[in-house]
């Protein structure tokens, strides 16, 4: 199935494909018994924090792309997974959220992005700090994996460890005028 589309809830984690083990819980459904890790909305996390923790499974939080991560971070800093979203293929607000979570907020858990993630967004999301990427169901997973390597360098510093081009050029001889 390696070349199939992403209809089996597969996630790109780092450089490989894994099955999605998280269960998304809406705000109405009762907290299930069992061992599957859960993802809940920020609203539900706020309202039912204790009950969710009492379930004894890992609980991640989904953030709307309108959420100010600077403001809400204290409430979610200890979560193992934060889920960001692309409600449309061209709405890039989650990229700033990821960048801030990984950068100045120093979040070290997993950052996942899902929604309308085209193959063309995979390396962009990765560079902003999303270590888990769930492409849209119709995207070819092998293409998405290949797209991770479509750029071997970059100008900007990013979560993939590439330093700023300006830093990399320090110490070089000045180009001849």
């Amino acid at each position, binding site marked *: 199935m390696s070349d199939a589309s992403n209809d089996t809830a597969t996630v790109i984690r780092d450089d490989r494909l894994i099955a999605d083990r998280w269960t998304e819980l809406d705000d109405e459904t009762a907290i299930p018994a069992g061992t599957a890790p859960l993802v809940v909305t920020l609203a539900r996390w706020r309202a039912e924090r204790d009950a969710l923790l009492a379930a004894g499974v890992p609980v991640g939080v989904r953030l709307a792309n309108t959420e100010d991560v600077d403001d809400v971070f204290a409430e979610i800093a200890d979560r193992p997974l934060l889920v960001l979203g692309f409600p449309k*293929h061209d709405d890039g*607000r989650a990229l700033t959220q990821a960048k801030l979570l990984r950068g100045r907020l120093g979040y070290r858990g997993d950052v996942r992005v899902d929604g309308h993630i*085209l193959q063309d967004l995979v390396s962009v999301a990765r560079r902003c700090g999303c270590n888990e990427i769930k492409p849209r169901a119709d995207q*070819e997973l092998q293409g998405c994996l290949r797209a991770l390597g479509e*750029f071997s360098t970059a100008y900007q510093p990013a979560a993939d460890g590439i330093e*700023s081009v300006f830093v990399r*050029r*320090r110490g070089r001889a000045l180009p001849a005028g």
Partner: protein
Amino acid sequence: MYRYDEIDQTLVMERAAQFREQLGRYHAGKLSEDEFRALRLRNGLYMQRFAPMLRINVPYGHLNATQLRRLGHITRKYSKGYGHFTTRQNVQLNWPQLDDVPDILVELAEVDMQCIQACGNDTRNVTCDHLAGVAGDEIVDPRPYCELLRQWEALNPEFLWLPRKFKFAFTGATHDRAASRTNDVAIHIYRNEAGEIGYRFYVGGGLGRMPILGKLTKPFVPESDLLIYATAVMRIFNRFGRRDNIHHARIKVVVKNWGLEKFRDAVEAEYERILASDEAGTLKLLPQDIDYMRSFFPTPAYRPAAEVEADLGALANGDPGFAAWIKRNVVAHRQEGYRAVFISLKAHGEVAGDVSSEQYEALADLTETYGFGELRSTYDQNLVLPDVAERDLYPLWQRLRELNLATPNIGLLTDMICCPGLDFCGLANASSISVYHDIYDRFESLDDQYDVGPIRITMSGCMNGCGHHSVGHIGILGVDKHGEEWYQVMLGGTPSDGPSLGERVGRALSREEIADGVERLVRAYLDLRDDAEESFLDCFRRLGMEPFKTRLYAVGEPEKAAA
């Protein structure tokens, strides 16, 4: 001029390969029209009326001889033998084939050129004063900063999917020749009282349906913090720019809805947060970073004045054509014995801004014979040879005349800014080019133009305002009324030095009336001005709308070219 190293070169080649793959997926039906649209725009490809249009970035208007020759080749091989210069100093091909675009991108990449983010909702080509490095009124050469910003914004992952397009413009001189405050961000580089270099940031400018000039958000950002403050602005935009309505999605709407104070405070708060975080370390420019970029823009190897200076008065004697060209198209240079030369792309009967394949190649030769291998494109859709020895002016003029590139009309009535209009553009509501020709015909006599003096006429074929009609002394906007082309007229706009937006006069004029109307406005000015020293704009500012309005609609009065 900046030259690509292995990092730049790798990026543009990988970008071309990425687009080739995307095009393949589109043909295979794996990308919807809407999805492919967003991807192709980010590679400069627009779908126009008859064919795709490919916009090629010319960062801050700089081109070298090799690039000019390549543009000659590309326009001949892939388009219809010409390429069009825009107000953002870029080149547009109006007739490429979709499937040729990956090859074109590779041919561009080979000569340090690209179409990265030339269209689409992302950061666009950085523009700049076309006299950078040679103008007498320059405080700081802006080009190293333009290049630093270009690299920071190219494929910047955080800001690739913005609410709407985003444009930066730089100037480092007393006079703003870059129309900077019509951009989302204008950066004015200067020295403070302590002699330190810094930036004055204006944010929220833009033309189109809601023309507005950028507002001052910070009077002095330290030199090291260029990319930090720019990041703060863009982060506010990415988070808070509207995404539900394309017509309200520019950053100017955030500034307008929030009010300047709230917007400024939000940017300031983000700027402070970055400064207090590790991110500052990756974004702060060290003196050596700026020196590195500055070394690409050295002072050319000018020859001593005694070897290059010439008595232009004597040269011009007996050749009124040359004298007129010296007067209109040649400007002072900060190096003794040198001049900067404007190449007019507004010859009679031509399309404003168009350059043929043969002209690109001839211009490449001229930059080498009469300069240091460089050419600039300007906001006004003309070109500049930045470093011409005075002794070379006469032979240069003769050669330019042979190329039909020596029309002595820079800054005059026929030096109009004009978008492609209905002839090419899929967005246009009305023709621009034919109206431009009609107006041109009425004032073709240079004596008439010299009598009128400096005047800026700008024309757009639709509300999107690519022809900058909002900032023309006389601005013309084509509109569609029940399938007919009509033209609104605006007066009193100017994009630089105390910029202002034009005011709409009144009812629109028909296609048949518009050139007559413009002529009546110019005649009104000649009648109303204090003396020949008072420009059209100054006269309008002194007298206001009423006398001009009366004359614009005074149909039936004798109409003949201003004499």
